[in-house]
């Protein structure tokens, strides 16, 4: 019988947890400036996240899903994508959204309970976050099909968690990508947990990458705490996808924080596991590399932090100063033109004393 145990799922890593290179870095990512740029994006994402949690704790943001520990996946994927590609992110992929050009204040707006947060000015065709786990996979297949039918060299990139790979819609969407050889890359941010459910309870498959085999597409694993590996492998996957060979890339990382701000992860997982995971912190890892190999130092670090903090501060201000949206908006985007039978309801809403 064929069994997963026989499989040789390819695993890629460039930087060890201590920041030491495990192999020569890919040419496109070996220049210090490009790595510094990635480092900046990871730091920015982390600050964005810290600030989001603080806003939530002080009642100025709604329930929020922290990206802590997953910065390398988002930044690596965002780096690998072209502007004209389309991203379909799940709810924890702020890092890749930011890298794609969604503004921090827009993301805050969304998590602050304001639909305008998904009307971002940046990557116009990117999807809003998908809250229904896995639901964006068949949609991504649709986007990829659109590219293929129009003959455009663009890729639909669908990013989701390990839990999502248990969903039927994940499988159906991926299967379509295989059948039609769509320009589709599925990135699985395997952070080892789906709320309280550990990765091993999602599936008996030894890797999530091997789920690709069920649909006849390529699948591989990368060290998701190594931004170089993510950028490189997702980069190759994108190149292949552009040529009609879809792929699944599993990024091994860890959710360092709670599931969301209403979760308490200490109920279901050991502190020791979390501490161990901190040893693989993607941000520290790249900093170590830059320090050892590219003259990164305290001054540059502080300058970077200051720059990022200022940018986040401006975003927070912009967010907090956003004027409220008129309540008529409940009806204004329901249909292109509000059908006659609904006009009375809109009027009743506006006539109400809460308008």
């Amino acid at each position, binding site marked *: 019988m064929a069994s997963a145990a026989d499989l040789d799922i390819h695993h890629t890593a460039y930087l060890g947890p201590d920041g030491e290179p495990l192999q020569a870095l890919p040419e496109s990512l070996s220049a210090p400036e490009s790595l510094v740029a990635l480092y900046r994006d990871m730091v920015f994402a982390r600050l964005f996240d810290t600030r989001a949690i603080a806003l939530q704790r002080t009642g100025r943001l709604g329930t929020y899903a922290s990206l802590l520990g997953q910065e390398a996946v988002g930044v690596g994927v965002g780096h690998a994508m072209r502007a004209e590609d*389309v991203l379909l992110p799940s709810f924890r992929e702020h890092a890749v959204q930011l890298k794609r050009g969604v503004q921090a204040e827009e993301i805050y707006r969304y998590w602050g309970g304001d*639909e*305008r947060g*998904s*009307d*971002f000015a940046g990557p*116009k*065709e990117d*999807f*809003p976050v998908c*809250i*229904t786990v896995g*639901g*964006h*996979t*068949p*949609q*991504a*297949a*649709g*986007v*990829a*099909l*659109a*590219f293929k*039918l129009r003959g455009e060299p663009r890729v*639909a990139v669908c990013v989701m968690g390990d839990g999502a790979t248990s969903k*039927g*819609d994940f499988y*159906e*969407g991926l*299967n*379509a990508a295989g*059948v039609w050889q769509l320009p589709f890359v599925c990135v699985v941010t395997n952070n080892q947990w789906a709320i309280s459910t550990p990765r091993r309870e999602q599936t008996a498959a030894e890797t999530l990458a091997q789920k690709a085999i069920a649909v006849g597409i390529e699948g591989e694993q990368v060290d998701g705490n190594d931004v170089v590996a993510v950028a490189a492998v997702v980069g190759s996957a994108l190149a292949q996808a552009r040529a009609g060979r879809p792929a699944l890339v599993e990024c091994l990382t860890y959710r360092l924080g709670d599931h969301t701000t209403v979760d308490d992860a200490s109920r279901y997982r050991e502190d020791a596991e979390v501490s161990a995971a901190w040893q693989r912190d993607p941000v520290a890892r790249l900093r170590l590399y830059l320090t050892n190999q590219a003259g990164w130092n305290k001054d540059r670090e502080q300058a970077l932090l200051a720059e990022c903090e200022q940018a986040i501060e401006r975003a927070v201000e912009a967010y907090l100063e956003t004027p409220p949206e008129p309540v008529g*908006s409940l009806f204004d*985007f*329901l*249909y*292109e033109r509000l*059908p*006659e*039978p*609904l006009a009375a309801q809109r009027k009743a809403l506006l006539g109400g004393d809460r308008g």
Partner: protein
Amino acid sequence: MATVAEVNLLGAVNLALKRAMTEDERVIVFGEDVGVDGGVFRATDGLLQSFGPKRVLDTPLAETLIAGLAVGLAAQGFRPVAEIQFMGFIYATLDQMINHASRLRTRTRGRLTCPMVLRAPYGGGIHAPEHHSESTESLFAHVPGLRVVIPSTPADAYGLLLSAIRDPDPVVFLEPKRLYRQVSEPVEDDGTGVPLDRCRVRRAGSDITLVSWGAMMHETLAAADALGADGISSEVIDVCTLKPLDTATILDSVSRTGRLVIVHEAARTAGFGAEVAASVAEAGLFDLKAPVLRVTGWDTVMPLPRHESAYLPDAARIVEAARRVMAYD
């Protein structure tokens, strides 16, 4: 280049699909067996031959996929027309339709939109196998942001489907399969759409209002004939667009007749007939001279063919209800 052809409802659907694909190259058709086979009912017959494999696609056997593909394609500017083979297999699309298709515009404040059509044959009366005779239109009618359309004549099937495809928002288009081949009429293939939020007065009358849609329209018209023979004049309204519901037309009729019977083949409880009745109980109560009766499928599982006729409303049941209503004055 408007040609007039005598077509049945199935032919009208086919004609509208061809017209829409000809006039707008963003229109693409997909689903299970819609290509070479032309659909299990032949609604998409000839499309693959005319428009090629980039515009007519057979999908893998996966309904959630079909709906999700439509969302993705629509967001990308296509005008997807997706077929679900039978309404009994449509439930796997609900997650996509409710959580995504119906609200992509709202969620993104108009940045992305979802101009898709989800077509499916629905309803009983053709002695089909298990799960092939379902009428669950009210599930979709409850979902804000969707439109729900059900034609009952070839001409309307043509015009409503064209409007549905051209509409900038998601439309669930349900085709009463019992009528597919039952009646034909001349349909002018001139690309004229039928408005999407307007009930149709199929027959003017003064004593009682009969409201129905889909295959039950024909039982209702038969009942109106029978009542007419007894000197009872029925106004017959076809709710060809369930959502948004044009209550004005219904209320206007009831204001003149004072009597209302609603007919649908779906199960009674929380069927769409309840919405029609509730609308009148709210805005037309004082016009009513008699209770509002619903003649519907029972609150039972749709039976296998042997008992299908015991389940489906027919003209006799409608006449009976109408007479009960007429007994009041």
